[in-house]
Each structure stands twice: as C-alpha cells, then as structure tokens.
C-alpha cells in the first residue's frame, strides 16, 4: 500500500512541481507583496508590514472607477448573455431543418480572431474622419443624433463594452445549453404532453430544472469571467483605460505593474487580492444557491 502511494506521488510530481513554481509560489508572493509597505523593487526592501497598500488602493479614484465598471459589466452581461443563450439554444433545439447550419453560425464568433472581432466593432461603432460608424449611420437614418461610442459619454462606452462582452461569450454558452437541452430524455416531454402540460409549463417545470446544473455552471463561470474582464476593454478603448474611464479591476492591476506610472507591485497585489475576495464571495453565494435549488 505504502509503496503504491509513493509511486502515485512520483507520477504526480511533474505536475505538482509545475503548479508549485508557477501557481502556489506566486500566489503566496502576491500575499507577501500586498502587505509589504513601501516596497522598493530596485532595492527589494520595504518599511514594514501592514495594510496600507489596501487602504491606498481602496482610496484610489481610478480603482473605484475600475470597481464600478467591473460591477456594471458583470451585473449586465452575465444575466443578459445567459438569457439570450438560453433563448437561442431552445430555438435551435426546436428546429429540425438547417439546425447544423445555424449551430455553426452561432458558434463562429468563438473561433474568430479577437483582433478581427475588434475590427468589426470598430467599423460598427467608431467615429473616424471619414465615417461615423455603421451604428451611427443607422441612428441617423432613424432621425437620431449620432453618439461617439468610443470617446463619447460614459453610458455609450459602457453600452459598447457590454454589447461586445455579451457577443463574445454567447457562442460558448449556446453550445453548452444546446447540448444540455439535447440530453434531456424525450420521454419527460412525452409524459408531460400526455398529462396536458402547456409548452410554457413544460419549459418552466421540466426543461429548466433539468438543465439547471448547466445554467448554474454558466452563471458561475460567467461571473468569474466577467470579473476578470480586461482584454475586451483594451480591444475597444486602447491601452490607456484610466484616461478613457473604462478601466477594469484586472486592468488596474496591470497598470499598477507595467502601465505608465506603474511599477507598484504592492498596490497591484493588494488590488488583485481584493478582486480575489470579491470573486470568492460571489462564487460561494452562487454555489450555495445552486445547492439549494438543485438538491436531490
């Protein structure tokens, strides 16, 4: 038995070593950085241990802005993208003709290059010297005044960011939900139909509970993904997100490390740990709710 388990550990060693060097040690280091006050990366010295870094980050208006942006993004995009994905998946599941074609079309964004997507959004929304962008042309044709979505008011920029995020995360969610729907035993539907349940009742009382585990999975990963948003904002608004007022928490962490006026690993670490605490809390709440509602 002992020999057996030793052998097992040896097999695990490469992966464990890898994890230890690239995951566990850095995590631990982040914790250490975040409590070292006045850390100087040149001399590798600090004044002492304390919570000043956290206090600084929490009072930094840029961080507050990033926090606000991230929360708005999460609260809008997660329910919206999951809901739309569910609608599309149910639609896909109920058609027979051209099902594969539509499935492929809905999945295309997932395999499309991010830069290409960014370009498309630019054509749609960006105002240039030559054009106001496709969306603005549409707005004008309906008699509205054009809006600068990239450098304009805050709500316009947030709208573009949310739109972009929803669009990017949709394909994966549709894929997961279509397969979840397809895996429901058709006998349940037959039984319900024979028993006279309406389409809506079948959907709410049978379909939804049956795919609830997948829905919760999507909501939890959606929350985590949206809290970690950064590249989307960069793709739309460029690297100077603080100036655009569209920074996210991860963006703030990055700026603190490498951005102009960066080089503050202590502040970055503190911000990263605050994000970690937020994600952890939300995930725990999510898990508790899902346990309660899908308990067997």
């Amino acid at each position, binding site marked *: 038995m002992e020999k057996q388990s030793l052998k097992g550990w040896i097999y695990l060693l490469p992966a464990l070593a890898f994890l230890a060097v690239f995951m566990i040690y850095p995590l631990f280091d982040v914790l250490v950085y975040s409590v070292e006050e006045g850390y100087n990366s040149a001399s590798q010295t600090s004044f002492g241990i304390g919570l000043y870094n956290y206090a600084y980050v929490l009072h930094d208006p840029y961080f507050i802005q990033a926090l606000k942006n991230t929360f708005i993004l999460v609260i809008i995009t997660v329910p919206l993208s999951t809901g739309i994905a569910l609608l599309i998946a149910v639609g896909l599941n109920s058609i027979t003709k051209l099902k594969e074609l539509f499935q492929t079309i809905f999945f295309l964004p997932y395999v499309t290059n991010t830069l290409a997507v960014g370009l498309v959004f630019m054509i749609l929304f960006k105002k240039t010297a030559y054009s106001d962008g496709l969306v603005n042309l549409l707005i004008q044709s309906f008699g509205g005044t054009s809006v600068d979505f990239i450098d304009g008011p805050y709500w316009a920029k947030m709208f573009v960011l949310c739109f972009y995020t929803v669009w990017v995360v949709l394909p994966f969610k549709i894929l997961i939900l279509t397969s979840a729907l397809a895996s429901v*035993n058709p*006998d*349940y539907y*037959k*039984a*319900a*139909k*024979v*028993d*006279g*349940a*309406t389409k809506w*009742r079948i959907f709410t*009382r*049978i379909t939804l*509970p*049956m795919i*609830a585990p997948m829905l919760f999975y999507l909501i939890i990963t959606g929350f985590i993904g949206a809290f970690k948003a950064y590249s989307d904002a960069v793709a739309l608004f460029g690297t100077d997100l603080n100036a655009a007022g569209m920074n996210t928490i991860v963006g703030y962490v990055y700026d603190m490390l490498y951005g102009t006026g960066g080089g503050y690993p202590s502040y970055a670490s503190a911000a990263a740990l605050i994000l970690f605490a937020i994600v952890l809390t939300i995930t725990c709440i999510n898990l508790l709710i899902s346990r309660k509602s*899908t308990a*067997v």
Partner: protein
Amino acid sequence: MKVVLQNLTKIYPSRDKGPDVTAVNDFTFEIPDGKLIGLLGPSGCGKSTTLNLISGLETPTSGKIFFGDDDVTNLPPENRGIGLVFQSYALYPHMTVLQNIMFPLENFKGKDRLSKEEMKEKAMEAARLVQIEPYLERKPAQMSGGQQQRVAIARALVKRPRVLLLDEPLSNLDARLRLQTREEIRRIQRETGITTVFVTHDQEEAMSISDQIVVMKAGVVQQIDNPQDVYDHPVNLFVASFLGTPPINVFDGEVRDHMLYIGEDAVMKVDLEDRKVIVGIRPEGFILDENGPLCCSLTGVQVMGRDTSVVSSHPASRNPTVCSIISAENKVTGDTVRFRLKPFKTILFADDTEQALDYSVLE
C-alpha cells in the same frame, strides 16, 4: 371504455432515399371495456408505434381510433384522457414522488381546476392504490426500480384515464421484481377496471398478464386471441416460434398415405392429403418411449429440478438441437432416445405459406 382501432396504418416516410417504412399495417381490433391487452412482438414489429397511435403522440397515416363512441383519431394526447407509463418511467427527477403524482392534476384548466387539497387527496389515493405512501417525500433517485415503476403507474392513474397504456413497463426491472410488478399491474388493473394496453417483447409476460394477446410481426397483426389459445393454436409458424420457452421444435416433414413422416420416422397417422409440411412440436409434446417412432441422437440432459430437459438432435430438425421437457422421474441414458408425440402439442404448418394446417389424428 372500449377502444376501437379501425384499419389503423402508420407509414414513416423514407429517410436517405430508402423505402417507406410501414410500421403498422391495417390494424383492426376492438379492445373490450376493462380488459388488459398485451401487444406482443419482436423489436420493430410496430407494437410501440401502435401504442403511440393510441396515445396520440403519433398520428396515423390512415385509419381511425375510437374511445367508446368518441372518434379520437385527430385529438392531441392531452385531450384523449390516457395514462402512459414509459419503459424509462420518465419520473421527473427534481420533483418528489408526491409532486410527480400531482403533476398531471396541476395541468387541469377552467372548471376542472382542483384546489391544492383536492390534488393532494387524489394523489394520495393513487399512491395508496400502488402502495407507495411511505415514500411520498422521496425523490425518484432514492427509490428502487420497482418503486419507481409504481410511482409512474400512480402518475398515469391519478387523473382517472379512460385508457391506460404501458410501454414495456417491466423491461428495466430484474427478474424477481419483474414477476412481482407484473402481478401488481394485474391487481391494479382489476381494481380500477381501466382498459389497459400493455406492450412487451416478453411472451411469458404477455401470456401471464393479458386477457388477450395481439401478436405482431413487421407491422402486421398475426393473431389475436386469449393467451392459452395463442399458445395452443398458433395461426402460423412465426406465432408458434415466438411463444413458449424453450421455443417450439421445428422439423421438415411430409405426409405420405396419411402418414406423417419426420425425416424417415413415421410418427403418426393424420387426415391430410400428401404434401410437404413443417412440423412444430412443443418441448412438452414429447413422451419418452422405448418403442416410440421419433428417434433422436442424445446430446445431453439438463436437470432443472422439477423437470428434465433432454437435448438431442434429429436430421430433419431445422435447429441444431431438439429440446424436449420430460418429468424428472425418467432416466435417460445411451446414444439414442425415442419419443412418442402428443398430438395436441404437435402443430403442422404448410411448407410454403407457413400457415397452420387443420388436421386430426387417425387411429
């Protein structure tokens, strides 16, 4: 409520340019009120399709279905007043047993709408009928297969259906439970008096439970009769072979001068003209007799306790082995074994059409 099927036909259009599939072909039958009918046949014989047509989950290509005097051919399933039990039970896993049984009642609309108490009352009544009251708060996953099956039956019965349909309800149970549940279904059917259609591929199940058996093959009804008559007087070779375990022994035979020959063995005098025939002999149709006319070479003897199964071979047999069941008191030894035949257990079929031939034994 009697159920009338009138020239019922279901044709599935071809897929991939293959031929159209006729799942049910011109099925006409009147199921008497309050009886339990077994639809029996091998996989793909159209028995489940027939059930789906009665339930309304599928619509017939032609033909009509009546419940009593109501033409229900074009009614959707929810308006037919049927209860359906699936092979997979199809119990909703996220609901408790009570919620499962109450589900059909919650769908009532308008003046039929029930209060929570009435629903619970009716659900309890159904649960009592199938004897699952102690488990009402459990989820289906916490119950055995047999208990789940009872819940499924309770759910089908709770709204007092006019017709109860059971689609292979016992196939997912182990042998012992299958026997028990079979009895249970019979008891519930008798108590409620609901006309019931029971689909199975297990001939023993169909025989033990049904008032009448419908044997189907490739969409065509072969025979409709009470179980004993289907067994004793099969209309053709297919029905004879499909019913009975061990299966009927099939020989190539011939009638010459009113004498029936199996191979070269002259086994009995019959009142038929000279012709080639197929001889079917039930395993219990053999009588061990030193001077018997049918001579087989002995392969082995299987002791089954109550009976002894004698496995032998005969040159005219269509199967490699001939199986005969005799009482366990007999001792069988040696290389050959000789039998006399019980005329009642010996069935003759035309060699070309495989239809059963009417004959009497001449002394």
